[in-house]
């Protein structure tokens, strides 16, 4: 009796164990099958590495990556690049500062700067990037481009967190939609030899001018908030520079008179003046943004805020040689 009940119980256990093993195998098999596309994707990221985060070489050329990944997220691209080859002189700011190419700076002023400015860059990004660079290397010089639209507490874009988060947890690099998009566009562009034309406006100059003036700059000025917090952070940054012997300067880039008039029509002249007072109390300021021979001519501009190459070279000469012609220095 005992023997029979024990053998029944044993066979039940065996049946239960068998079912469990069968179920475990079934689940593992299906999960393995389900994972295949993700494994392929991970391999693709390794192979393309759109931001050169994992390796220094991949099957996609740097030129292709510059026209794709860099356009999609310049912060990650530049932080990764700087992390590998840091320089002790940096340029910070938005697209206006970004337009001053390092090669031109070297050619005009014979100084080796890393251009750490981003299209659409905000003050938050400028400050974060400064400390990122300073943590990476011993800085000697930092020039920051600021205009009223960036000296604005309402301008809250913050893309500079991404690269440090990748450094902290590299797995995030594989599950980021910018990396995904960049990997596919880079691979596609490389294989098909197509220019992806990312970030290039597909409209005529006049239409783009109006869009930039009314929608973009108008948007910034409509919700202008005086940046109390950022002013304090800039003061701390200047103090830090003094302690570390880092030469600091600000540049207020020339905007077309249309933009200057927009400032007036939004009743922000007082804030515009306050910005100049604040910045000059912190460090040396090169101010190009007033009615002058550059800002009154439309041919000096691609749009109401972005100046042409000859003006870029003039700005470089003035801020790096110290011999100013248009810039007012404070």
């Amino acid at each position: 009796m005992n023997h029979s009940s024990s053998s029944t119980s044993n066979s039940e256990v065996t049946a239960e164990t068998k079912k469990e093993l069968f179920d475990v195998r079934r689940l593992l098999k299906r999960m393995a099958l389900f994972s295949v596309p993700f494994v392929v994707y991970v391999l693709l990221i390794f192979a393309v590495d759109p931001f050169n985060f994992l390796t220094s070489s991949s099957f996609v050329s740097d030129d292709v990556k510059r026209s794709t990944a860099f356009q999609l997220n310049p912060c990650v691209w530049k932080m990764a690049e700087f992390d590998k080859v840091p320089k002790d002189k940096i340029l910070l700011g938005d697209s206006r500062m970004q337009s001053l190419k390092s090669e031109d700076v070297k050619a005009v002023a014979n100084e080796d700067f890393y251009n750490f400015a981003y299209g659409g860059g905000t003050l938050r990004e400028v400050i974060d990037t400064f400390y990122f660079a300073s943590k990476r290397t011993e800085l000697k010089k930092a020039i920051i481009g600021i205009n009223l639209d960036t000296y604005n507490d309402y301008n809250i874009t913050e893309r500079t967190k991404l690269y440090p988060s990748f450094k902290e947890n590299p797995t995030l690099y594989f599950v980021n939609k910018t990396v995904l998009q960049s990997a596919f566009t880079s691979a596609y562009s490389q294989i098909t030899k197509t220019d992806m034309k990312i970030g290039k406006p597909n409209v005529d100059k006049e239409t783009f001018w109006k869009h930039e003036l009314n929608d973009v700059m108008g948007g910034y000025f409509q919700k202008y908030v005086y940046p109390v917090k950022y002013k304090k952070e800039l003061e701390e940054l200047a103090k830090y520079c003094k302690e570390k012997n880092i030469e600091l300067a600000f540049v207020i880039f020339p905007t077309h008179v249309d933009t200057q008039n927009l400032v007036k029509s939004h009743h922000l002249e007082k804030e515009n003046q306050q910005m100049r007072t604040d910045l000059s109390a912190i460090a040396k300021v090169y101010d190009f943004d007033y009615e002058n021979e550059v800002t009154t001519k439309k041919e000096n501009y691609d749009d109401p805020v972005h100046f042409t190459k000859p003006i870029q070279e003039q700005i470089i000469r003035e801020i790096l040689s110290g011999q100013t012609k248009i810039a007012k220095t404070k």
Partner: protein
Amino acid sequence: MLFNSFHFLIFFPVVTALYFLLPHRFRWALLLAASCYFYMVFRPIYILILLFTIVVDYTAGILIEKAEGRKRKFFLVASIIANVGVLAFFKYYNFLNESLRDVLSFAHLSLPVPPMLEILLPIGLSFHTFQSLSYTIEVYRKKTPPERHFGIFALYVMFYPQLVAGPIERPQNLLWQFHTKHYFDYSRVVAGLQLMLWGLFKKVVIADRLAPFVNTVYNDPHSYQGISLIVATVFFAFQIYCDFSGYSDVALGSAQVMGFKLMKNFDRPYFSKSIAEFWKRWHISLSTWFRDYLYISLGGSRVAIPRWYFNLFFTFLISGLWHGANWTYVIWGGLNGLYLIMEIQWDKLTGGNLFKFEGGTFGFWAVRAGQILFTFSLTCFAWIFFRANNVSDAFYIVTHLFSGLTTLPSDLQSLVFIKMNILMQHDKSEFIIAIVALLVLFVTHWLQRMDSGRNLLANLSTGLRWSFYYAIVIAILFFGAFNESQQFIYFQF
């Protein structure tokens, strides 16, 4: 440890694999150790508070069973005082102290007051305190015998899936499950994983994508009015739902994978047609806790009408205070209590028939949609107080909700207006992702009217089902907000 972290991605499969590999008699120890680790990732020292609660209530349970007459009540009250005392100290000390200072200053009295303390609230304190309390109350009410196995009792209080944000379980539902051997069952494990996946989707794709919009407005409400405040408030309604129900889904799912069945915490609450219904479908484990242990103890509805209304209102006030030591939560609780009283009164006046429509399908659905929208609007109005950083912000939002709405149609023609007031300066792709994810949520909930999500999936062909899985996993991985490491809102409670 957060459910939406890579840490948990390693922790969960390792603990689950070990759980099924170990003989049944050792499993409780594994789960207890895993739960301790899960909790100690937040702040190790606070495990001592949990230990205190466990020791007090374990002892109280046994003493209550052995005692007779008034002694039983004494042990119950002692347990309640110990539990509520810990909760009161960590959660309400500074709040009460500050309120006392305000009152004294208002009355121009200068009396000595105790100092403010720098206290960091232990994570999930209100949840495990309430779960532990429900044990001693149920033992006192003789609805469950005391648990003699100290380890199992500790596990009842600390079971990691529901340790920090519920569901707040009852001993009758959970304790016996720790004594039962659970086998690895393919269908159950898959169902659990599906629930976890859906919960993560709700948390990282919807809640965390909506959070930046809500935070921008609610952290600086005075810069906004009208449509921005409305959008942020509606977004918050979905953010908090997806955040909390997402957590509950992962909790239920991870427990289900190991063979445990936890109570359902949410049942598509925004489809409620009345406030009373909403509270039967929102945070069910807490609502029923308050109903069973506070509202009914006060006399429930079996008293004179004024007293009944007081019971309701008081229960909701306490529920508000349970959420946080801030007057905004108290007002939120009070508002919900008022809604419920007004609803009861309205039903009494109209006989509950005013909105009952029996003339045709269209009319039926229109009335139903109206009821759902009205209930949702009332809920959103109350959420303003729940989310606002302080009472003054909340009143600003309430008084400016409809400002500028008359010019809205023409304002919406301007891209600048949309960028500033609808997108709140955020990337439009973030907004689109959030809206698409909300649509997925709406469609899923709509379909769940007919059948459970599990059955709906089971009825799909393998190809469609796998496509759905891929879509959800891809959405979680690429549209989820991992790098911002957002905590669950309810962790702070």
